[in-house]
Each structure stands twice: as structure tokens, then as C-alpha cells.
């Protein structure tokens, strides 16, 4: 096929489209009569109800179930999207919207920032890793574990040298988790350590923070133990789940197996204050046994 023939063919096709226009959405007329639109009861300017406020454990949408009560009781045990019913072969509108809302909340938790005044409001100094913004934080995990020379110097003057415990609060992958849980958990850890006569030291807030940033802070301060409160990668059940990572003798290159983790800290999981009280006791144990992570588990089993 030469160039001329091709041009002729394209012209022919374009012409054909002109004569017989493609159906547009607005031209569609259903064969069967449509159900009448129900009035919504809302005025212009009203807010629609917040569908994310509905408890997934109680949201049961199957119509005319045989054993609805029994299913509802099972649903109490899990936030999984079960018993959603269906509209034809598809989700109901509520299920679909809720799924998209939860997905959006998870994305927001990752992309949004812990507020600018969070650290200052809670009596902490703030530092930033090598990452310049969220995009870099998400694409360069290595930069989320390190500080530039200026920040290292700042941390050296800011934080006590060779403390037993250095607490770090890091935004991690969920800013929402930190805003919701970190300060309640931190208050419980501090009081728990004070009761046990362990100096809780001076906590610091790290923006664009990965767990490994605690290792760099270990290098800088020479702390015996670092305890990091960090936002977990959000899921569709909650965007506010936080973890605590405790590392004995943290330093750059320390093995991941040497970290002790308390995860799932959120209102429907482990309450922040209980997780904090538990963490204080864990810190005492780890300082006494001088080991954290898998080594601590082995010791407990021995």
C-alpha cells in the first residue's frame, strides 16, 4: 500500500463517520420506562451524609436475607466488606462509593503532610530527612533513612548524647496515623518509663521518615535504644494505623531482624495508650536483656 492509497482510505473512513455519527450518551433512550427519581430530601447547599462514618462491621446490605441476624453477628467479627448485596451483577452504589472513599483516604494519608505546627505544638523539635518532598519520599526510600550534614549537626546539638532511650516520631506512610495516635502513645510510653525509673529522653519529630532513620539517629546520638513511632502503610480498613519499632544499639546497616515491632495501633486495633504502656515495659525488658527483635523472641523461648 503506497502513501496515496493510505491517504485515500483514511479520507473514506472519515467521510463515513461524518455521514453516520456515532451514538452520543445523551441520545440514548431506554426501551423500558425508568423508575421515577425519588426526592432526596436535601436542599442545595446541604452536605450529604458522610458514608465513611458508617461502621463496616454493621453495614449489612443484603435484601431479604434468610438468616440476616446470624450474618450480622458474624460481620461483627471482621471489617471485611462482606454481605454487601448487589445491584444486578455489580456492587450497590453505597458499597462502590465507600470503597472509593476508603481508597481515597488511604491515598490521602500517604500524600498529606503532618501539619506544620505538629512538632512545635507537642513540644518536639522537627528535622527532615534527605527527601525534599512527598514525591521524593515515596520514590527514594533510601533518602528517607538519611540526613544531610547540616541536619546531622542540628541533631547532635539538639539531642542528648548517649542516652539510654531516644524516642523518634516519624510520619512514615500515614500522616493521619501520627496525628491520631502518636501523642497519646508517647504520653503513655513516657509515663511508663518514668514509673520504671528510665529516662525517656527528648523525643524528636522526623518528616519524610522511614524506620531506618532511627539507625542514623543511633549513629548521631550513640543511644542505647531507639523507639520509633511511625505511620503504617494505610489499607482500606483504616488509614490511621501506627507501629512502634524498637531497635537495641541502632546504627546504619543494623539488621531488620533486630527490630521489635508493635503494630496495628489504632482505635479499632490496640488502643494507643495500651500500646504505649506495653512499649514502656518492652523497652525495660530490652534494656535489661540487651537485645531486641528476633533475638528477644529467642531469649523468651529459651
Amino acid at each position, binding site marked *: 500500500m503506497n502513501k496515496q492509497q493510505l491517504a485515500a482510505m483514511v479520507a473514506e473512513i472519515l467521510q463515513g463517520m461524518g455521514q453516520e455519527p456515532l451514538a452520543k450518551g445523551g441520545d440514548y433512550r431506554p426501551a423500558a420506562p425508568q423508575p421515577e427519581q425519588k426526592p432526596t430530601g436535601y436542599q442545595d447547599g446541604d452536605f450529604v451524609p458522610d458514608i465513611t462514618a458508617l461502621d463496616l462491621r454493621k453495614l449489612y446490605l443484603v435484601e431479604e436475607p434468610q438468616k440476616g441476624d446470624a450474618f450480622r453477628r458474624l460481620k461483627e467479627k471482621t471489617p471485611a466488606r462482606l454481605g454487601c448485596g448487589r445491584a444486578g451483577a455489580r456492587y450497590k452504589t453505597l458499597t462502590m462509593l465507600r470503597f472509593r472513599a476508603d481508597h481515597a483516604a488511604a491515598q490521602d494519608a500517604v500524600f498529606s503532610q503532618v501539619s506544620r505546627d505538629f512538632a512545635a505544638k507537642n513540644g518536639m523539635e522537627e528535622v527532615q530527612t534527605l527527601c525534599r518532598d512527598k514525591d521524593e519520599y515515596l520514590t527514594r526510600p533510601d533518602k528517607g533513612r538519611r540526613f544531610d550534614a547540616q541536619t546531622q549537626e542540628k541533631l547532635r546539638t539538639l539531642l542528648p548524647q548517649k542516652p539510654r532511650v531516644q524516642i523518634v516520631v516519624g510520619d512514615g506512610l500515614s500522616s493521619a496515623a501520627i496525628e491520631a495516635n502518636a501523642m497519646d502513645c508517647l504520653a503513655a510510653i513516657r509515663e511508663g518509663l518514668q514509673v520504671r525509673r528510665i529516662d525517656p529522653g527528648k523525643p524528636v519529630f522526623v518528616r519524610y521518615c522511614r524506620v531506618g532513620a532511627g539507625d542514623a539517629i543511633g549513629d548521631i546520638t550513640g543511644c542505647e535504644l531507639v523507639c520509633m513511632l511511625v505511620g503504617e502503610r494505610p489499607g482500606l480498613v483504616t488509614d490511621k494505623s501506627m507501629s512502634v519499632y524498637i531497635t537495641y544499639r541502632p546504627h546504619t546497616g543494623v539488621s531488620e531482624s533486630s527490630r521489635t515491632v508493635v503494630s496495628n495501633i489504632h482505635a479499632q486495633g490496640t488502643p*494507643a495508650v*495500651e500500646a504505649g*504502656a506495653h512499649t514502656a515495659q518492652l523497652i525495660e525488658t530490652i534494656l535489661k536483656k540487651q537485645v531486641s527483635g528476633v533475638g528477644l523472641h529467642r531469649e523468651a523461648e529459651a
Partner: protein
Amino acid sequence: MSERLLSLGLDVGTTSTQMVLSQLTIENKASAFAVPEMKIVDRKILYQSPVYVTPLLDESRMDAKALRELVEAEYRRAGIAREDVDTGAVIVTGETSRKENARAVLEALSDLAGDFVVTAAGPDLESVLAAKGAGADALSEQLEQDVLHMDIGGGTSNLCLLRRGKVIRTGCLNVGGRLIRMDARGRVTYVSPVLEGLFPIAAGEVMTRETARALGETLTRGLEMAAGRLPPEDLLARLQTREAQRPWEPPEGEVVLSFSGGVADCMETAHPFLAFGDVGPELGQAIRKSRLCRGNYVLGKETIRATVIGAGSHSTQLSGSTVFCQNIPLPLKNLPVLREEEGDVREEELSILAIPGIAAPSYSQVIALAEKLLPRMGKQALVCLERDMAKALGQALAARMPPDARILCIDGIAPGSGSYLDVGAPVGGAFPVVIKTLVFGKQPMRREL
């Protein structure tokens, strides 16, 4: 990683005395990356004694020496030393609990049990233990309907209403197979005082099968009223035991009935009139033919052994796994439960305050609660909560009390009004707890531990 507790059940009933040894397996059900969550994952019966006749010296006294020897012999047969027993319950049930020397016998037997073995359980706990031992709690979890479990023994019937595995209420009636006993020729040798004014028969008279049937039918009518199958009349009130804390209220709706106890064995099988020298066979048959057995009913997976297996396998529960304990010697026994609305902790006796707590509280709410509780506590703060916040509350109290203060904060426990707690040494961070009522009224613990 799992831990094991050896649990003893010893039931000294109106008719029979039985013993079981169970092994409770406790495991952390949470992942290695979360706060631990200890649960009882398995209950295995290691040893079951034969069903012994409860040794009596006379109608008003138990034979303590014979009982002691019986228990010692059973330990030997089981091949288990008493020092190895971690938990469990020794209970004196039915008419036996009214014997003059019941309390002394129980105290003597508690030496033979482990350090943390509950004694003097009381009718509320017995009802729960029998229902769980018979499997009625599991049944109620499967069914849409409520289950009313009746453990019909020699002297009393323990009632337990269950909904989806949870106890709604318990009760106890003077309905049993051995309220009257006869010799081989049918001459009455014993009439329980509870029958006074209810059924005209006296020791020395001859019991005919017809008379026994009539008594069986009268007692069954009481059970029918208790199950809501007949409108309640005076008879139901007269059959209430004096130990019961409140009168039994029949269930509002339709229930599935579940039966255990020695008399349950006489329901499906007709025994000769004088087979056991009591009215058990006739009572069992009367129940079988009554309104109680119209519609759905089940025999427990255990019948005569339901209470003892309940005592061995189901008396202990675990608290939450994040809890707080400081300067408290364990086990703690017979701790009276004080509900929030029942006023201040009294100085003269040690008690544990039961409060609901707050779901997922902020730390300032924890501190506010600690400061609200402090003026009500002396040098000791013992608190049990329903919601998961005990460890945080415990350390908040510790930070505000002198270092030698005695503090116990546990959660996941919701004892009712008028109950008592026994708290054992922790297993993987969780405390074994037995919620009970006391048979012999109050036994105040010294305030100083």
C-alpha cells in the same frame, strides 16, 4: 509457643462426689508483631474419677476424713501431684452445701488443691459451670434461640439461661432426685426439709411408685414454671433455694431446653423404681413426659459429670494481656467486687473496683480516670475494667502513688454485682481469673495483704 495450666475440678454434690483433672492450653493468638493476646485454646481432660457416693457421717454432716482419703487416692490414681495443680474449682453443691460442717470440709479439701484453686463456688457459678460442662454455651452459639440449661442433681437444679454463648442469668431450685431416699423395700429413710409443706410424706412411711410419680410430677411442674412453659405460681417461689441471690425469672421467649445432672440420665432410660433408692427415676420420667420435652430439647454432651467437668475445664478465664500489677502477692482469693455505683472502697476490707472503662481513650482521659479513682483508694488500688486500658491506667496510678503502693489493674473482665474474684499468677502476661459467688456468705479478706 504455648503454656499449659493443670486445672482441678472437684464436685462434692448431694449424691455424688467426682474429680477431674484438665489441661488448659494457653496461646498467644496475636501475631509476633502486635501486642500479645493470650487465649485458652484447648481444654483436655487428663483424668476422670469414678462417680463416688458422697460420704456422710449422718444426715447433717459430711465425712471429712473419708472425703480427704478419696481425693488423695484419686491423685495417686491420676499420677499427678497436688503441687502441680495450677487452677480449678472445688465446689460443694446442692444439699451438701447446707451440711453443718460444709465450710470446714471445704477448707480441709482446699489444702489438697493447688494454691489457686477456688473453693466455695456458690450456686451462680455452679449453674454456669454445669451449663458449660454440658456444652450448652456452645449450643446456644449455634442456635438462633436462647438455651435454658437445667442441671438436675440430687438436691438442687441449677438453671442457666444462655444467649449466643453468653450467660444471661442463673438460678437454683430445690428440685432433685434425692430429696427423698428409700431403703430396698421402699421405706422412706430421709425426707429433705425443703419438702416440708410441699409434699406430705414422712420418714418411716412406705413410698409407692404412684407416690413417687406424684412427687416427680410436682417437682416437674416447678421446672415447667421456671422454663416459662407454665404460668408461675406459688410453687415456683417455694422451690427457690435460700442461697439464691434473687428469685428466678422465667425466660421471656421460647427457649431450647438442655439437661444434665444425674436425673437427666433417668429421662431417656427408664430405671426400676427402687434402682437407686431415691425418686430420681420417677422424676426423670416425669420430666421426659412433661411440657419441658415438647419441642426442641437436648441432653448435654455430659450429664452426671457436667458440673465437675465445668469446674475442671471452664472455671478459669483469662484477663486481657496488657495489664498492670505492682507489689501484689498472688494468688488473691475471695476479693469482693465493688461496682462503681456501690460507693467508696471501704477501709476495713480489701476489694476490687469494677468499672467499664473507656474504649480507645486518650492519655488525658486515662489520667483523669486515675485522678478520679485516687481519692477512693488507700495505699491499694485494685481495679478491673471491661475495656482494654488496664495497663495504661495501672501505670498512671503508679505514677501518682508511692512506690510501695499495691496496684492491680486488669481488663477484659466484667464481674456482676455481689460477685467475688480470685486472681492467679500471670500466664504470658494475662491473669487467670475466676469470677464466683460465695456459698457461705462473706469471708472478708484482711485489708493488708
